[in-house]
């Protein structure tokens, strides 16, 4: 193998709020290769690349460029060292021309002060010719197509002398034709000796163009492989699998009546494409219904529609026969619906507020928590102390701001709040994402306890092991549709499930219809 042009060794990154984004990550690039970096959202890819590009300081670890240790304090340092980055969201000035964007920050001068635009155009044309990337230097960026903008971004990096080019999900915004063109360009760059990091979810593309792949999961590297040595299924498994195999004892008691019923949910996304297409199912009392699927196949929208946050969704959502789809969140919760949100920092908690304040946010209004006009702080304090103990939350006490806790402990606070109010329905969205195994187990046990008490649980998770182990029945979503329903998912293999998740296989309408339990 060619010599390693860049090495990131034992990189660990802990953000000041305690989130560990990278844990002992090793990443190395060989000269002149196209190297894929794959992993789920939140696996730590972006953080790793931000460290490489000088946007974040690593907490630990070192970067070696051609064997020499380097430290990038800011993107300028990284650019000077020959690293270029094409962000997913383009960093261009729309009202400037291509040439003006190209030379931004390194403007050629006339008489030392005046901007030399003619020189800018010449530079642009020269580099465009050199790399065979054709752009019109005088066109305004706002009038360009997305594919063209991306070319400008690539050229911008090249004109600054980038030898290593990082492309963050470059094909996410491209049409298939543009993608094909991009691939030609990348191969061309590779031939010229450039090294390319290709971040993508689209495994087919990764297989088509990359030489090697580094897979990340939960902040760690899962391995580096020559692209021919792994199949798409292998990659998927490595991306979403879990090191500790979960095993839980579940009793086989019969389910109660359907508690949460979703009927014909249909919703259009921003581009007119259906993000939910006639989704129907029900969750019975004492049942955990798992939802599997590659992220971005309608799971988020499904939850939004259930919680009444999605405007313009057609279809109905009922809890115990009461339509809740049009109710506001307070009323939905009054129906006994609890919700563990996917993003605990954004929705699940108020970071600067105390653990106590975070624990009472869904019930502070009720009579039993108030004495006249005042909140019953003493009772709330007691509740907090007992929940902190029951969930083994590592904290100094109920008054500690929740933002100071680790991710796992923060998630335990969220789960404690949502599960303590005897919910009839629990929507659990990625309930254990980014938390340690111990916290995950406490959370899983709590969910199983709720199940025993007759709560209907809808579990959405990208963690296949979790879904398969906890769910009593399972639906698979692909492109906004339910493509499969299983009433005994523990007998299902991950490989089999993967075929449905990738959309290569789907059940007939009759079998899917059984998800309605009607």
């Amino acid at each position, binding site marked *: 193998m060619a010599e390693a042009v860049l090495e990131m060794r034992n990189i660990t990154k802990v*953000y000041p709020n305690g*989130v560990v984004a990278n844990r002992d990550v090793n990443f190395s690039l060989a000269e002149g290769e196209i190297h894929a970096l794959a992993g789920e959202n939140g696996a730590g890819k972006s953080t790793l690349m931000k460290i490489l590009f000088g946007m974040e300081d690593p907490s630990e670890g070192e970067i070696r460029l051609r064997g020499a240790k380097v430290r990038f304090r800011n993107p300028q340092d990284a650019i000077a060292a020959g690293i270029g980055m094409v962000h997913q969201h383009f960093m261009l000035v729309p009202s400037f021309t291509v040439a003006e964007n190209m030379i931004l920050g390194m403007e050629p001068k006339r008489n030392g002060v005046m901007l030399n635009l003619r020189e800018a155009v010449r530079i642009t044309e020269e580099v465009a010719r050199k790399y065979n990337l054709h752009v019109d230097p005088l066109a305004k960026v706002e009038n360009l197509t997305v594919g063209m903008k991306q070319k400008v971004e690539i050229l911008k990096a090249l004109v600054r002398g980038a030898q290593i080019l990082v492309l963050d999900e470059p094909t996410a915004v491209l049409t298939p034709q543009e993608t094909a063109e991009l691939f030609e360009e990348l191969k061309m760059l590779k031939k010229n000796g450039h090294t390319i990091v290709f971040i993508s979810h689209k495994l087919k593309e990764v297989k088509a163009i990359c030489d090697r792949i580094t897979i990340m999961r939960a902040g760690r590297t899962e391995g580096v492989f020559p692209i021919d040595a792994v199949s798409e299924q292998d990659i998927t498994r490595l991306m979403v699998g879990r090191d500790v195999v979960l095993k839980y004892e579940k009793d086989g008691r019969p389910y109660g009546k359907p508690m949460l019923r979703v009927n014909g949910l249909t919703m259009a996304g921003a581009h007119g494409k259906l993000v939910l297409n006639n989704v129907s199912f029900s969750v019975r009392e004492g049942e955990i219904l798992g939802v599997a699927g590659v992220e971005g196949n309608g799971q988020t929208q499904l939850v939004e529609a259930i919680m009444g946050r999605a405007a313009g969704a057609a279809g109905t959502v009922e809890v115990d026969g009461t339509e809740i789809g049009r109710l*506001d969140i307070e009323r*939905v*919760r009054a129906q006994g619906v609890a919700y563990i949100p996917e993003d605990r920092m*954004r929705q699940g908690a108020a970071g*600067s*507020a105390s653990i106590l304040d975070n624990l009472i*946010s869904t019930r502070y209004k009720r009579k039993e928590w108030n004495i006249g*006009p005042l909140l019953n702080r003493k009772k709330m304090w007691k509740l907090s102390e007992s929940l902190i103990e029951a969930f083994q939350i590592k904290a100094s006490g109920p008054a500690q701001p929740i933002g100071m806790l680790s991710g796992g402990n923060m998630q335990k606070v969220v789960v404690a709040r949502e599960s303590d109010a005897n919910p009839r329905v629990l929507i659990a969205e990625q309930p254990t994402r980014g938390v340690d195994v111990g916290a995950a187990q406490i959370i899983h046990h709590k969910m199983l306890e709720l199940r025993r008490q007759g709560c209907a649980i809808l579990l959405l998770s990208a963690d296949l092991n979790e879904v398969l182990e906890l769910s009593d029945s399972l639906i698979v979503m692909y492109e906004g549709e339910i493509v499969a329903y299983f009433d005994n998912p523990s007998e299902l293999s991950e490989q089999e499930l993967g075929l449905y998740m990738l959309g290569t296989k789907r059940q007939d309408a009759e079998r899917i219809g059984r998800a309605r339990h009607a």
Partner: protein
Amino acid sequence: MLKLKYFELFRTLAVVLIALLLTMLFILLISDNKLETMRIFLAEPVSSRSHVGNVIELAIPLIFTGLAMALMFRMNLFNLGAEGIFFFSGLVAAAVGIQTGLSPFVHPLLAILAGGAVGSMIAFVVGFLKAKWDANELVTSLMFNSILLGVGLYILNYFLRDASAYTTSSYKIAATAQLARIIPGTRVHTGLIVALLLVVLVYLFVYKTRWGYELRMTGANRAFAEYSGIKTGRTIVYVHLISGFIAGIGGSIEVLGMHPRFDWTALPGHGFDGALVAMLAKNGPAAVVLSAFFLAYIRVGADMMSRYSDVPAEMLAVIQSVILLLVSADQFLKFWKNRMLLKEAQKNG
């Protein structure tokens, strides 16, 4: 956690200290009689009963506007409308105050409540626009300040103006409406009691009631509040109602307590000072009192200095700006930092 709390306190004390040191530096540079000038600035405000009275008199309106601003800032609302409301509600109170035939207790009460009610109504408009259409409260509240000044001057000139007075001012406020002095030898009036009482009420409201809880959670993380079932739009509206009411009775009390006639022909500036008070107090209701007294103290000190020494009172503006800059700079950085952390955390969930 304790550390963090102390850190905030230290940071604030450091800001105050820097401001005072800077004042000393200015005096060293400007004054011919440096030590005497310093003594005047630092000691004169507490040298006599009447001077202490001056400090307290000035602190009273600052407590009101400081409280009104602190409530807004707590919600992450940058509403500076207390300035215009303070002025306009003072005018409303004066309009009630110049009437005759009311008893000494009912009259000021009526005038103050009228001022407060008008303050609430004005703030409601801004709050409603924010909650309903997400209209930027900074812009609308600043525009309201101009509108209120213009409308207020019109009312003063055409309805309340005493033609026999030498300056632009209203008829005399009836003796029954004027607030009683409570400390002999000073002009300190019953408004002080109202102000301190209000501090206690706001403290209880913010930390001990469910509405205060809604306010704090909406301010801390609006998405979280929404998700929990809190109607954040409604919270924004009632915070405006309360804040407007506090600014309104503040203006009313200032007029009835300190002015024989309503004679403001420009915005008095107490509303903007309230922003400084609230920032210095980190939006804590109790700390607002300390911070209002501190500001009043250096104000009176600067005033004395301009009277008895060769350093002009305008120097105070420089000092105040420095305080504001330092205090809001660290606020700004904190906000920025939190936002970055949050963004990061969202991406990496």
